[in-house]
């Protein structure tokens, strides 16, 4: 039986995980967010909704994704390492678990127009995909700088029929794309649903996205039981930007004290280099995109532009669930630098024949820092595949023979 813990898994009625969360939104968003808050749990509990969600996850996304024992990696670290293969999902990452759930929800709310933000483009592609599947209008906001950096994903979104709108305000990256998407929602209060891509934003988004992604840990428990005779690993490891794959991978283990929760943030050029995205190390309590969480900011409360080699971890905040895991000590937060992530990506490719996304590579970069033993069972969430990062990998292929 999976127990629901009030403190770590699920926020209170007002969307708080401990001190973090809430819905710090202007009145212009109130109606949209209130409608979602009143409806999401009801809709997500409807048998017809669950049936369609499960069927699409199975036949369209390709779930359950395998849990693969990485034998060579296990031997190298003298332990037992299992990989949760979210990279094998349709569109190449876990992001689609959430967009499938939200598009079904949007249909039931009577919405006809979908908006989304995207950084690296993975969430944008996953949103454009489900909009094509359901014949819905799709507008994706993407920072002008990211559009230049992620051309293949821009082309994928366009081929899927989405309109990609450059965010030209502020720093012209993910946080600004999110601002523009929220503004679009303010300007379209009736027909539009906003599919947020991570466990961020005003309540109920963090809880809703975590619930859609929780299929990851639900499957891990079943698969581990088959393979090891125990549902519980000793360690579950995932990378964290906003934190959606981590929320999904941790979810059904949060209330199991024996499971060590390991969240890996992007340290960029080094945590204290001034070029980093390690929010729990560098952030202070603050409010961004509608929730109170940890936030990288100046002493005057202006939001700081983070840096990571991986565009998906390049976010100045972190979901409120993770902020609570950090501050309560339930989660162990460590970080990996750009170089460590690159090394890990090449190493995984050569050791197990799997090219991971740069985001995902951060999770593998910490295996050597955990003092693993032969009796440990370690699950790493392999959140996405690395095709989109080939241009970056090619630049350092000479230094990784």
């Amino acid at each position, binding site marked *: 039986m999976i127990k629901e813990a009030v403190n770590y898994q699920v926020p209170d009625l007002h969307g708080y995980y401990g001190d973090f969360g809430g819905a710090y939104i*202007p*009145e*212009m968003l*109130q109606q949209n967010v209130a409608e979602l808050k009143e409806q999401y749990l009801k809709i997500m509990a409807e048998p017809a909704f669950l049936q369609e969600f499960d069927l699409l996850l199975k036949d369209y996304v390709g779930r359950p994704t395998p849990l693969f024992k990485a034998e060579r990696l296990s031997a190298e670290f003298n332990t037992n390492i299992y990989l949760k293969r979210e990279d094998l999902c349709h569109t190449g990452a876990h992001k689609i678990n959430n967009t499938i759930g939200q598009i079904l929800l949007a249909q039931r709310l009577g919405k006809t127009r979908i908006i989304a933000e995207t950084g690296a483009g993975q969430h944008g592609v996953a949103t454009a995909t489900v909009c094509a599947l359901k014949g819905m209008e799709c507008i994706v906001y993407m920072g002008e700088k990211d559009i230049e950096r992620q051309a293949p994903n821009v082309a994928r979104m366009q081929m899927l029929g989405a309109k990609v709108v450059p965010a030209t305000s*502020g720093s012209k990256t993910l946080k600004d794309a999110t601002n523009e998407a929220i503004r679009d929602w303010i300007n379209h209060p009736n027909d539009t649903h906003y599919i947020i891509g991570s466990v961020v934003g005003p309540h109920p988004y963090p809880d809703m996205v975590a619930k859609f992604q929780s299929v990851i840990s639900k499957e891990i428990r079943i698969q581990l039981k088959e393979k090891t005779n125990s549902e519980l690993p000793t360690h579950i490891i995932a990378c964290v930007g906003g934190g959606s794959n981590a929320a999904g991978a941790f979810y059904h283990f949060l209330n199991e004290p024996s499971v060590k929760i390991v969240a890996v943030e992007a340290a960029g050029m080094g945590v204290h280099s001034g070029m980093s995205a390690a929010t729990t190390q560098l952030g202070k309590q603050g409010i961004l995109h509608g929730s109170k969480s940890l936030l990288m900011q100046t002493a*005057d409360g*202006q939001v700081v532009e983070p840096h990571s080699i991986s565009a998906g971890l390049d976010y100045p905040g972190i979901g409120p669930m993770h902020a609570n895991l950090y501050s309560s000590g339930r989660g162990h937060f460590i970080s990996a630098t750009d170089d460590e992530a690159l090394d890990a990506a090449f190493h995984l490719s050569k050791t197990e024949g799997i090219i991971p996304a740069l985001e995902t590579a951060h999770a593998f970069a910490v295996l050597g820092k955990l003092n693993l033993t032969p009796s440990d069972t370690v699950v790493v969430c392999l959140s996405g595949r690395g095709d989109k990062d080939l241009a970056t990998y090619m630049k350092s292929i000479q230094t990784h023979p």
Partner: protein
Amino acid sequence: MSRVQSIFSTTKQPVLNIYFTAGYPTLDSTLTVMDLLANAGVDIIEIGMPYSDPLADGPVIQESSSIAIANGMTIELLFSQLKACRAQPSLSKIGIVLMGYMNPVLQYGFNRFCADAANAGVDGLILPDLPEYEFEKEYGEIIKAYGLDFIFLVTPETSEERVRKLDSLSTGFLYAVSSSATTGGETSFNLVSNYLQKLQSYQLKNPVMVGFGIKDKASFDAVAANSQGAIIGSAFIKALSNNTSLDELVPSFVKSIRP
């Protein structure tokens, strides 16, 4: 009676509230702009505290905020600029309201912010991303303790029940957003009239000031016919971005609204 409340009870014509961003167009222009607005006959000045991620604002105000931040504007500096303002005869009676977002205020320290605002002669606060749940639970009492007004926003989508709730929590005035949009957008004033007449029929405790999309005499007069006045922001910021001297520009802008 607060200063803002007395402005509504003594002003015969519709109340004119002009918004500008602190530290824009230049770091030191804050008091100059205020002085010129006051001399031109504006009733309330709304000063924007610049923030890197102003969700409720459109491109014009965001751009002015980015420039103000680059100029070096901070809450700390704004308070030091405002300290002397009430000693100036032109600014002794005008309403001064601060508008901004929660994050910079929380970093400054909410209690300290309210204390320093009151001390600098500020009358009231507009913090669009402070929701009523958190206001009632934590922040409302602090605001009240320092004698500051707090102004909530309502929109055409806000239910009657919620309008009444937000009116009961507000002091000074209630800010009616003309349409569901970010600041600086285009607005249909026929629809706005219906909405404002509905608000009037509620017989609220606070005067209603209309904002978003008010940009000239025609739009000001249109909304003022069914409210106590209006707030002009983006149109004034746009005017400030012209490289004309402030001494000429500010009075002529105000005159174009209220000859």
